[in-house]
């Protein structure tokens, strides 16, 4: 069944799967550190999502070949975590450099978030997950694109919900983080319900 399906279909299905069914925040729990904190204003949340998307895709683009063509032949696959975190740190600087030089508008939008992304669990989680489960290059790129799209959608949705949430009369103890978690739990149930489409 697998060989007959053209690659592009598997590629697109993998993107949709990584965006919705296997969503990075609500199902796989990467990236909760920034998801809970920064997501109560729509504008910064969206820029945060774009910044994470930028770095995640570049990180997977660099980490996969580095693992398969440098670390494995050299016989030191156990060095992957240290290498990835260094790559992600350099990428954050490089992406910042490019944005600083060429597009002040983008820099104004999410330039200040970039240093925070090095400690974002989603970026390292995707890069490490791709090579741990031995995905091919195409599928790991699909995973990266899908994951960053999923992160962007969810953090944007969460920001919209939470900005309306402040107007509601939430019980005092639930204000802030607890109610955000409950809302995330309900969204996660919705996404689990989506499971039927793909499989």
């Amino acid at each position, binding site marked *: 069944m697998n060989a007959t399906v053209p690659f592009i279909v598997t590629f697109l299905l993998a993107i949709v799967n990584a965006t919705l069914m296997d969503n990075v925040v609500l199902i796989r729990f990467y990236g909760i*550190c*920034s998801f*809970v*904190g*920064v997501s*109560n*204003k729509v504008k*910064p949340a969206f820029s*945060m999502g774009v910044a994470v998307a930028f770095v995640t895709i570049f990180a997977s683009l660099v980490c996969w070949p580095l693992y398969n063509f*440098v*670390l494995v032949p*050299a*016989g*030191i696959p156990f*060095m992957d975590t*240290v*290498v990835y975190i*260094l*790559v992600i*740190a*350099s990428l954050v*600087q*490089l992406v*910042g*450099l490019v944005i*600083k*030089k060429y597009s*002040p508008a983008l*820099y*104004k939008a999410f*330039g*200040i*978030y970039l*240093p*925070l992304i090095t*400690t974002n669990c989603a970026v390292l989680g995707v890069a490490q997950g791709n090579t741990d489960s031995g995905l091919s290059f195409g599928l790991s790129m699909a995973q990266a694109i899908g994951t960053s799209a999923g992160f962007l959608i969810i953090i944007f949705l969460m920001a919209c919900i939470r900005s309306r949430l402040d107007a509601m009369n939430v019980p005092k103890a639930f204000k802030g983080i607890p109610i955000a978690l409950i809302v995330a739990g309900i969204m996660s149930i919705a996404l689990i319900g989506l499971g039927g489409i793909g499989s």
Partner: protein
Amino acid sequence: MPQFVYLIIAIVVIVALVAIFVISFIAYRRTPVPKGCEDLVANKEKCEGCLMSECPLAHGREEGH
């Protein structure tokens, strides 16, 4: 492949990556901030991303203990 060869490869790979990081780190610091964004200070809701103890950009903030 004797063991110490792996050791040398590992150190070479890591030091090379550190070198790339330092170069990009310096380059990032060197480029001037684009004209319109000098006033971009670590504003409040950006710093909420790490909630309490550690916020790399808000150096001035005193860590509550």
